[in-house]
């Protein structure tokens, strides 16, 4: 008979109510958004202003506050897909290895003879030695610079791949080391991009790795992809260089290995600096805003051991001399070295206010991108177009929804009404799940929802048609309903699993908008099966228990 246990009834109704609670914030989108932002700001800064409080109190804290994330195409914003030129790191690794190698080999000049770096492609270091018979000895010295690589797959491998022939030694990073380096380069790039994007304080930027050497950056609310590119910077590099002189002439004559760079904040001031940096930003581990001994804003920084050693050696040899902190070919600051800094930590002080100190700390921490970014794809959607799409989607959904309900009620009468209620519940559940998992709703996602509206009633239709058939064999309404559900089950399961397979493939292989479509489609499939099999059935049972009809018409 038509029996549903009490606990099951409570469970089904409970799920529906829970869905309603979680979907509800989307009806008050602006208010909830303001509330969430205010809560986040208060938490982050610890400062509470009346405006923030008002925004926070706009939505009760005990209610769910998850919202459906609107995609870039609905909210406006910029999307960038960049490729990190990881090979650049190989080159800089080899370039920085050369001076160390040169001094190590020079120490053995008596045995190996004169040494000379010869041209080779980027990322490869070729050294000629004067005494070919001692090649083995030279290789041995070079090998001393190779370190074991610790990875799961690369066990037993060392960081350098060294080969030698005639009087030439060829050195490059080993494959294992390249893999490790690539990974680190991408991680660093992601971190740096994230910090720079966070600087503008936009809501929920997406910054993630994609594939081997790609990064995907999506920032809602930003005017254009070009703006975003400028923000991220493509070649930003932080270095600490020796200062040769200061002046007002951008075309000052300089010696070999020296360049003239402008000051970042003082117009008309130019610094002549040594091009080879003492330390680079990659060797910086931390930077924090602080105050100096006079209580003025300053920035504390700390180097890693290698950087600390180099910095210590340089500062002890150059007390009283200025050195330049160079970012993106601009001198941010050129403080005078007051004492040797051997601890690996130091302080940058100068004429800056707290805001500037903070900004400098962020820049130092964020440092330079370890390698250039090459942009492969960029998309900008204006906020108005996004709003138009939301409006169009809303109207289309409403009209589609109404039309489907009319069709269902005309076809199945009372049962059509049940299906319509279930369809409403279905929509609520879709939005609830989207809010809970924090999925992003895109324009094709809206299309997915509208398609779901059309297809969601399918399970109901299967059941109702089946009930009609069972009624023809006149076994009484209760039995017909029960058999209807029972027999339609396998068709419902098969039909929906196949669609779910498609949605899963779309999700795995798709990118961007296609993924959004796959998400709403799969959620819609799951919720529509739930509503058709449980919600409609429960409503039918409630109705049946009250009305106790002798005869039903589907």
């Amino acid at each position, binding site marked *: 008979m038509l029996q549903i246990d009490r606990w099951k009834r409570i469970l089904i109704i409970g799920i529906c109510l829970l869905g309603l609670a979680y979907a509800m914030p989307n009806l008050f989108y602006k208010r909830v958004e303001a509330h969430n932002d205010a809560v986040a700001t208060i938490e982050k800064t610890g400062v509470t202003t009346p405006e923030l409080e008002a925004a926070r109190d706009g939505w009760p804290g005990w209610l769910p506050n998850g919202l459906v994330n609107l995609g870039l*195409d609905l909210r406006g914003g910029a999307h960038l897909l960049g490729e990190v030129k990881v090979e650049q790191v190989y080159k800089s690794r080899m370039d920085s290895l050369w001076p160390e190698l040169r001094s190590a080999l020079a120490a053995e000049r008596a045995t190996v003879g004169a040494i000379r770096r010869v041209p080779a492609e980027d990322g490869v270091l070729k050294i000629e030695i004067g005494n070919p018979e001692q090649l083995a000895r030279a290789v041995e010295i070079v090998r001393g610079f190779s370190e074991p690589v610790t990875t799961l797959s690369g066990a037993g491998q060392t960081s350098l791949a060294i080969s030698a022939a005639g009087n030439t030694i060829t050195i490059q990073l080993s494959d294992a080391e390249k893999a490790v380096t690539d990974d680190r380069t991408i991680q660093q790039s992601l971190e740096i991009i994230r910090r720079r994007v966070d600087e503008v304080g936009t809501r929920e930027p997406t910054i993630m790795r994609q594939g081997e050497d790609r990064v995907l950056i999506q920032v809602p609310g930003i005017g254009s*992809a*070009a703006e975003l590119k400028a923000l991220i910077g493509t070649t930003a590099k932080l270095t600490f260089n020796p200062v040769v002189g200061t002046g007002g002439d951008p075309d000052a004559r300089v010696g070999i290995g020296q360049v003239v760079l402008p000051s970042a904040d003082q117009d008309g001031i130019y610094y002549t600096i040594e091009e080879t940096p003492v330390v680079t930003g990659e060797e910086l581990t931390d930077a924090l805003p602080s105050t100096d001994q006079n209580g003025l804003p300053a920035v504390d920084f700390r180097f890693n051991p290698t950087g600390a050693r180099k910095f210590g050696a340089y500062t002890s040899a150059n007390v009283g001399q200025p050195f330049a902190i160079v970012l993106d070919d601009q001198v941010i600051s050129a403080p005078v070295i007051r004492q040797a800094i051997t601890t690996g930590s130091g302080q940058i002080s100068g004429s800056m206010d707290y805001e500037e100190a903070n900004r400098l700390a962020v820049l130092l921490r964020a440092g330079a991108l370890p390698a250039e970014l*090459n*942009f*492969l794809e*960029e*998309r*900008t*959607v*204006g906020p*108005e*177009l996004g709003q138009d*799409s939301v409006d*169009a989607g809303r109207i*289309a959904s409403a*009209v*589609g*929804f109404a*039309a*489907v309900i009319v*069709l*269902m009620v*005309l*076809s199945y*009468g*009372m049962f059509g009404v049940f299906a319509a209620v279930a369809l409403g519940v279905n929509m609520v559940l879709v939005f609830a799940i989207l809010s809970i998992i924090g999925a992003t709703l895109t324009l094709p996602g*809206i*299309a997915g929802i*509208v*398609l779901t*509206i059309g*297809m969601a*009633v*399918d399970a109901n239709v*299967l059941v109702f*048609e089946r009930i009609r*058939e069972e009624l*023809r064999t006149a076994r009484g309404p209760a039995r017909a309903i029960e058999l209807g559900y029972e*027999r339609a089950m*396998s*068709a419902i399961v*098969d*039909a*929906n*699993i*196949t*669609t779910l*397979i*498609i949605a899963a*493939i*779309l999700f795995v*292989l*798709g*990118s961007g*908008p*296609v993924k959004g479509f*796959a998400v709403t*489609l799969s959620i819609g499939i799951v919720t529509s099966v739930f509503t058709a099999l449980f919600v409609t059935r429960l409503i039918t049972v409630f109705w049946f228990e009250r009305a106790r009809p002798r005869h039903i*018409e589907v």
Partner: protein
Amino acid sequence: MAFRLRLVPAQTNIDFFRWQFLTFGFSTILAVLSVVFLLIFGLNFGIDFRGGTTIRTESTQAIDVGVYREALQPLGLGDVAISEVFDPTFRDDQFVSQVRISAQDGVESVTPETISAVEAALKAVDPAITFPSVESVGPKVSGELIKTAIYAVLASLVAISFYIWVRFEWQFAIGAIVSLVHDVLITMGIFSLFQIKFDLTTIAALLTIVGYSINDTVVVFDRLRENLMKYKKRPLRDLMNLSVNETLSRTLMTSGTTLVALIALLVLGGDVIRSFVFAITFGILIGTYSSVYVAKNVVLWLGVKRDWSKKDPKEVGSPFSGAEVD
């Protein structure tokens, strides 16, 4: 509530195989025509697959495509396609156009200079112009997108046929695949014939069609399987007709509700996703047709083993290997 809308009478008894050579011929001609269209006209690939830049412009002034073209001429961008977009959802003073610039020679990534040059040139002829969206895809990515798109379609065909083979029998899987290829091919043919923009979202639409069409087909198959067990001796052809007749009202009802929702989206959903929605709408029509007229015809020709108690005379072993034609 006495009135009931019935899309089909309560009980139908249509012989769907009566016209099978006609329908088969119709399907074959459409499929062949689609291949011909694809070969002759090709597909109007969007920038997702071809690389390049699409700039959407919007203005309160009426758009003169010729003026735009002249403004862009001096930039020497090569292939520039400008088309005005019309849509019933636009406001009276909303004029939209689409400027497509093909991937520039020798440029791996997208140059913002090109985009700003184009924007400046258009601003010069129409000061009221705005650029609500700009999209650029480099040639490297577009190649990969084509590849993943093809993989996605193939993977879904394989996954579905595997599922059907496991749940039903291999003949059903083949029937389903044939009808899916039929649907996808004809939809692509339409895209080729009318040169509708074919991009990443169109692939999503094609896969949705695959999902919907298989959904429809599976319901018929499911009923067929049930009837095969119920009527052990009736000819396969009769059972197929019976199954389709029994599920006909469901098939049309579900297609009806889906189409109603999609038509709402097609008319009111805006021009940005129109080609996507069009693909799905068309695909649902063809998918409904193919689940009635294509999938099971293939199964009928392949035959289905009926009596599981008897060992297959030809081969003893795998339960999926036998075939018997009534």
